[in-house]
């Protein structure tokens, strides 16, 4: 298999915690290369303590083994640091449909660093009348919000 074929194969792997998007769409899958007969897959965590990394590593190794690649090394890198800017528009739309409000602005916007994202849309009714419940949600990459119009609680994928 060529590196391109391996990449295509791996791009089908869903994120273990947000299974509607793949590890490629999320920007976790960084690179594929071959060193002699060993396949080296480079991934990067969304947050440094992300507990899903082990599961992702196992998914990668298992899928490659099923496809006849026995020698696999999964490398985890921190640099360049993962950012929500890597999420494609398609991925953001998938998140919204899944009930997670996608990060709206890019992380280079300084207001993101100093304050809380100003406008957060409810993924269910599209209202902008929402409030922060907690900066830390069900996973490290999400914050917890509540819609004041439809009253539903929802997750925001934090801009990062």
């Amino acid at each position: 298999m060529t590196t391109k074929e391996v990449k295509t194969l791996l791009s089908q792997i869903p994120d273990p915690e947000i299974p509607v998007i793949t590890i490629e769409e999320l920007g976790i899958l960084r690179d594929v290369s071959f060193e002699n007969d060993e396949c080296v897959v480079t991934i990067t965590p969304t947050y440094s303590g992300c507990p899903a990394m082990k599961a992702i590593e196992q998914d990668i190794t298992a899928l490659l083994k099923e496809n006849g690649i026995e020698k696999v090394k999964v490398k985890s890198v921190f640099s360049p640091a993962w950012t929500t800017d890597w999420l494609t528009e398609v991925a953001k739309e998938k998140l919204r449909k899944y009930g997670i409000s996608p990060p709206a602005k890019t992380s280079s916007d300084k207001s993101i660093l100093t304050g809380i994202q100003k406008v957060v849309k409810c993924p269910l009714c599209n209202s902008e009348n929402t409030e922060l419940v907690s900066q830390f949600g069900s996973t490290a990459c999400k914050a917890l919000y509540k819609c004041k119009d439809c009253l539903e609680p929802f997750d925001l994928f934090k801009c990062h």
Partner: protein
Amino acid sequence: MEKQLFNYLLRLADSSLILGHRLSEWCGHGPVLEEDIALTNIALDFVGRTNSLYEYAGKVEGKGRTEDDLAYLRTEREFFNNLLSEQPNGDYAQTILRQYLTDAFEIHFYEALTKSKDETLAGIAAKSLKEIQYHLRHSSSWMLRLGDGTKESNTRLQNSLNEIYRFTGSLFETDENDSVLIAGGIVPELTGIQQQWQKDVDTMLEKAMLNKPENVWMQKGCLQGKHTENLGYILAEMQSLHRAYPGVNW
């Protein structure tokens, strides 16, 4: 310079691990569900950062020690975490205060560390800095809520401040080991960072209606592995499984 870098990485990693472990003690005990989740999320960030720092330290040392070896097979005197990180959780006010004092330091320290000439260290710092921004926002908002809250919450926060402020000097401990690294542009000089920290903390204490303790004798010794008695208890619990079943794996 490998020896000095190894020592420095251990210091960073140890502080991160011990505070991360402390925060994880709140798991299932938080005052409200959101805070339980927040503190364990923050704990996860600290332990994740520790993992990368130990992994790199093991590589720099070149003796084949893994992150588990470094976390589980050293004794109190071989740990170099700052003294603030090992202080008990106490009540929620004390946990928040310990966190705020640490976050206010880390935001400046890790930002400076992103400019390190050591690419791996700069990479870990850049990753951590993004997370520290969330930690600081969380702890700052609780400092204000508790300090400017009820008489009870203000009293508790003030009592915690009187109790643990003397360990903040430990955040800025430095020795000749560091001077080599500072000269090489690997790690930042701490004097400027300490001034920024002090300014931020003074402003916060005033906003939170707290009195800064006067004439405090700063407790030090972490770089020589001298700790308060708390560390021994933490290690006893944290390392017990690995000590009982050497080399155990999930």
